[in-house]
């Protein structure tokens, strides 16, 4: 389901108009983004949590050329599903 479809479905579900839903969705996304950029984690009840994790730098070897590359450290977004969600998925 892509973005557009999601908006359509949400509009249906909530009864709000599409532009409104669009705005709301945008605001949600931006809020999540802002918090993540600040390094804070976000938890959605019964759904899951978004958090920022630091990945240390590492040495990786290209299997064919055997060139060693030093990959720099980075911050990445990580999502962890809630156990409730997991159970639902594996009912």
């Amino acid at each position, binding site marked *: *389901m*892509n*973005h557009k479809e*999601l908006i359509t*479905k*949400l509009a249906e*579900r*909530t009864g*709000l108009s599409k532009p409104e*839903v669009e705005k*709301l*969705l945008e*605001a*949600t*996304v*931006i*809020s*999540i*983004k*802002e*918090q*993540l*950029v600040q*390094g*804070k*984690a*976000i*938890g*959605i*009840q*019964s*759904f*899951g*949590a*978004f*958090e*920022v*994790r*630091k*990945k*240390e730098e590492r040495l990786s070897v290209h299997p064919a050329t*055997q*060139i*060693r*590359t*030093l990959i*720099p*450290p*980075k*911050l*990445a*977004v*990580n*999502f962890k*599903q809630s156990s409730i*969600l*997991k159970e*639902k*998925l*594996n009912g």
Partner: protein
Amino acid sequence: MDKAMSKDKISSQEMVDLVASKLSVSKRVAEEFLKSLFAEIEEALLKGEPVKVKNLGTFKMQWNEPRKSVNVQTGEVFVIEGYNKVTFTPDSELKEAVNEPYSHLEPVELDGEMPDFEIEKPVTGVGDTLKNLSEQASEIKDILSEINALSTKKTAKPVVKEEPNEVEAEITTPIEIPDYDLILLDEDTEEQTAEEESPVEVAKVTEPEVVVPPSDDKPEELIVENTVQKEDEADEVIEPVFDEPVIAQPVVEQAPVITDTKKENEMENTEEIPEKSSSPFILGKKKKRKGLRFTIGLIVVLAIVGGAIYAVYFSSSCFRCWVEYDLFSETNRQKISEYTNTFKGWFSSDKKPANSNTSENDTVAKITLPADVANTGDTVTETVAQTAPKDSLQMLFDSHREYHEFLGEEEIGEGTRLTTIAQRYYGKKDFWVYIYEANRDNIVHPDRITPGTIVKIPKVDPRLIDKKNPRCIAKAKELHDLYVGKK
């Protein structure tokens, strides 16, 4: 491995507040929306459908295969059943925004080489190297003096005295430390006197040291000793040792890296002599590789340059002209005849001996044949059976010219000159003589042309009017002199 960046966790409620404040909508609306949103995503995922949210990312359901695992307490193996998992891949925008603090970093290729901090040390002259070493020596001396206090110097001394040849054994033992101390003492005479070492003693200690360590350590050792010896009063030892640094120095300067590395290693770890060989080996290899690459590159460059020169030499018409011009001097005509005979042998000789018109190019072709057959092309086959040593171009010059084909006509006006006409048609003023020749019935004297005369521009044999051929120009000038009578 991964670390969570913050302990701060924003709850669902807080999210509601954030969204509400952003859009200035009521909290209830925001709450409803958020609930619906994630419910919707859940639904889709339960159906197995991925959900893509713009600027955020994609939620997908992923199936994990059952796998074996061990109960850490009981040690029993058990199976983790297969399960579905919600995975989220962030959008590139989100990724970049989150990675801002580290955004400037790029992956670095190492090429399998060790980072070489040693190389960064500047390659200095002899005196400086020694100075460096002595500085280092004095620094480390402090450390060693501490160790010195602990170790038994007394026992080391007699051992060394009695069995100078077996210092080898000593070196690998901790007792060697006092030896180093003696060696490294350069400026600190206090320590020297405190230990009551005689210069001879030092000499004895150091000399076996020269012999004993493995050969690749030698240059370094010698330098160390040299440092010491300089300030030392052991005259008897100084001279032979001094000779060696002279030899050692070029070795050092060639491979300062190796020396420095070894120096460092040796200074820091007196006990680890056998290990030293590993790092210089690797560095030597690397250096060799670098040196090897350099030589290969150099050879390639030279080959390219050589090829370029070769090409230029043989393809340049200027050069060809030059070659022709020279070769047709008396001295080289014999050589030419030789060449012609050889070439005659190579090709079929059923062509009639071409004279005058076709022959003029054969010697040209012969000379350039090895280099540039393509250019001369058909002229080569044409001029096969030439044996005449006399230059064919010369013959063409000498032959009587008759013009039957004309390129056009020009009317001579007041200021019209044959030279300008020639320039236009043939590309060189000098070739006006051929125009004159073609119009002799019409023109009495080249200087006196009646205005209104119509001159016919002949089609001249291109080989005669090759403006790039200095011989052609010379011939034209000859004719000029002839006709204008300025001889």
